[in-house]
């Protein structure tokens, strides 16, 4: 499988602060890859290194098979970048902004641009500085989709947006995403869950895991054990069992390596007197919280 983005032991330090500590990441072509993690995990730094906005301290990265340090204008003509904190030429109207950018992209599609403007309900005669935050993100998205990029990179695109605008953005994005790789950083897991195909979890500058969302959802289960009488927690539980707790006659934990056959057998071995064992699927948000807590306690 070829990859749109690869990083090799990527490191970025700001003086003594380690923002990225040796990240190895692969984003398959055509995937919708969500890079999640708590605030300050290094997501934005990773994206800025990938976009050659920041220089890595060590390691390297490739974007569309080009070393990110050598990304040239012709490479950026195939990359769409939308960021919550990007400074835009605010004096421009939406129409002028799109018209100004058009000649720089050989694959710019006027019809697609017009459609995006219509679909995202962009006021073309209004200056960017007079747009709401959501509208600015939409304008940025429209300007980054109109040339059918091979890769779209979105850095926290949903932060601070209301639900309606989020939906419109996602619709606008997904409607044009066929054959395009989307790399998105977010801590809005509820949104990510609805469309991401792959997920990577970055915490304290380290990539804790990176896999398909489907397999991630499959391997995380909240396991609930019911006993006849209150049951204490044994001392040595498997490391994959996160946040074990007991409430009266009920023991709960999150199995991060759930297997439909092996997990019940393993539970029976440690808790032979459990009356009932239930393994419940988890939303992405709960998985994320469990991982965040586990990494803090590690």
């Amino acid at each position, binding site marked *: 499988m070829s990859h749109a983005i690869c990083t090799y032991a990527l490191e970025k330090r700001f003086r003594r602060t380690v923002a990225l500590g040796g990240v190895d990441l692969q984003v398959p072509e055509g995937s919708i890859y969500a890079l999640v993690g708590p605030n300050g995990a290094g997501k934005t730094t990773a994206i800025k290194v990938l976009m050659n906005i920041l220089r890595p301290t060590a390691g390297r990265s490739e974007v569309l098979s080009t070393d990110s340090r050598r990304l040239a204008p*012709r490479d950026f003509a195939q990359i769409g970048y939308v960021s919550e904190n*990007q400074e*835009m030429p605010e004096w421009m109207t939406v129409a002028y902004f799109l018209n100004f950018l058009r000649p720089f992209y050989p694959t710019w599609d006027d019809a697609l641009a017009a459609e995006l403007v219509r679909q995202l309900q962009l006021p073309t005669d209004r200056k960017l500085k007079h747009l709401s935050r959501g509208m600015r993100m939409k304008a940025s998205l429209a300007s980054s989709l109109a040339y059918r990029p091979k890769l779209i990179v979105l850095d926290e695109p949903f932060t601070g947006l209301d639900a309606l605008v989020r939906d419109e953005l996602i619709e606008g994005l997904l409607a044009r995403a066929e054959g395009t790789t989307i790399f998105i950083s977010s801590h809005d897991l509820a949104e990510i869950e609805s469309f991401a195909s792959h997920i990577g979890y970055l915490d304290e500058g380290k990539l804790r895991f990176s896999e398909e969302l489907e397999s991630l959802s499959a391997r995380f289960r909240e396991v609930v054990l019911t006993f006849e009488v209150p049951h204490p927690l044994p001392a040595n539980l498997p490391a994959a069992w996160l946040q074990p707790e007991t409430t009266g006659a009920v023991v709960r934990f999150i199995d991060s390596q759930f297997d439909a056959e092996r997990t019940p057998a393993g539970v029976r071995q440690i808790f032979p007197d459990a009356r009932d064992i239930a393994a419940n699927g988890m939303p992405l948000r709960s998985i994320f919280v469990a991982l965040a807590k586990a990494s803090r306690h590690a």
Partner: protein
Amino acid sequence: MRDALLIFRKDVRRLWPLVALNGFLFDSVAAGDVATIFNTKTAVPLLFMQLPAILCPLFLIAALIQQEKLTGDRAYWFTRPFSWRNVLAAKLLFAVVLVSLPLLMAQVTALLGTGLSPFAYAGMLLREQVRFFIVPVIEIFALAAVTRGMVEFIWVTLLCMVAQLIGLLIFLTVFNPAEAQDWPRFEWFRSAVLAAFALLFAAAILLLQYAGRRTTLARATLAAAVIALAWARVLAPWHVGFDLARRWSGYAVDPVIGQVSYSPHPNLMHGGACWFERPGTFLFIPIDVKGIPENLAVFSERTAARIETSDGRAWNSGWQAVGQILPSSPGGSCLHKPLSNGPGWLNFNLPRRFRLQPTERLHIRASVAFTLLGPVQTATLPISTHMRWISGVGFCAALVGEPPVVAECIAPLEERAYTVLRTQPPVGPPCSEDLLSNSVMSSGIGIWRFSGGGGTCATQGQIYLDSRQPIAYFERELDISGIRLADLEYQRP
């Protein structure tokens, strides 16, 4: 190039109000230049346009660069298919077409308005364009490239100016101040060296920022540039400028011209009439200058001396601006002016630390840098408020005032000839002679660059301007052994 033009067009659309204001201010200065000559009532108010006309292009350039910011990590163009070469080319094109060229147009308009042909000044207009493009345009390019916004740009600019001033003061303290004093005729060399340094550093900063956005390194380079520019004067000694002028003049000066010899003469007028307020020992050596062809003259620019005492102490003056040959004229005139054959005084200012005993034997070796001047051209200057064009000198006017008559000349772009303002009473010798100074009156925008004037001794009599053009540069040596301080004229505070 197409992409550069697209960015250029975008910048024009964004910045046209500032471009228009800049053009208006340049034109106002040009109108002020013309009004100065014709002494119209609008001249004074238009003079106040000079300061905004200096500041406006600086803000325009800063705003231009910061349309595509180079600092930080948020600028929209970092992730767009913009080549840094195209962005830089667009900015340079803008600066040339909409900042520098309007200045050229304003200066051409001013020349035409005063009745002068721009073609006669084509070389100087071009030189002005180059100068303006380096200082301040490219300098402002570099400053704007390392700052985050207009407020930071203003603060950094002020900080750089203060740092430069401090650096200059340290330089003056550490090095021989004589070297740093005014260079009336050779300032071009020092300016050129400083401009070359400024260009070099600015190019380095722009390359660092545009090619790699190495902001920390670029800011360090800016700090180094501020220090280096204050100290670059070390690399521009006066004598190198003089020597270059000598080589480039292409005129082989006959060795007999301007020979200088020690010549104690009992009837030589008292050199002490020319004592100046200076610390240390002021020394006058009686000399004789000879070999100057009848229709020519020489002007002693500077002198360098080495004085050795019999007990092995030595002092080197360097090329002192105060070391000049003053003519011995009736009344003990101290005028530093073109010399003909005859007696004069070679003077030096010895520092306090090099104290000499009146009777100790000295060995004095001196080099005198001369400018050979062509035949004199004399023009009369009637008393009138209207300025009159005098070739080689500029526009001049003579007004009744205090002293009795005040003459003032201003010259466009080029330096004027060596000119003496002479008042000739109906009978007898001139009652006053005054070398017109070449004070720089430049704002860098208008066409009037050099002004100079002088007072005359009486309202009676004719006022003349005797001007001579420089034609060559040369040096002559003076070597005096076994002389005593008591044999010379000197004064100690």
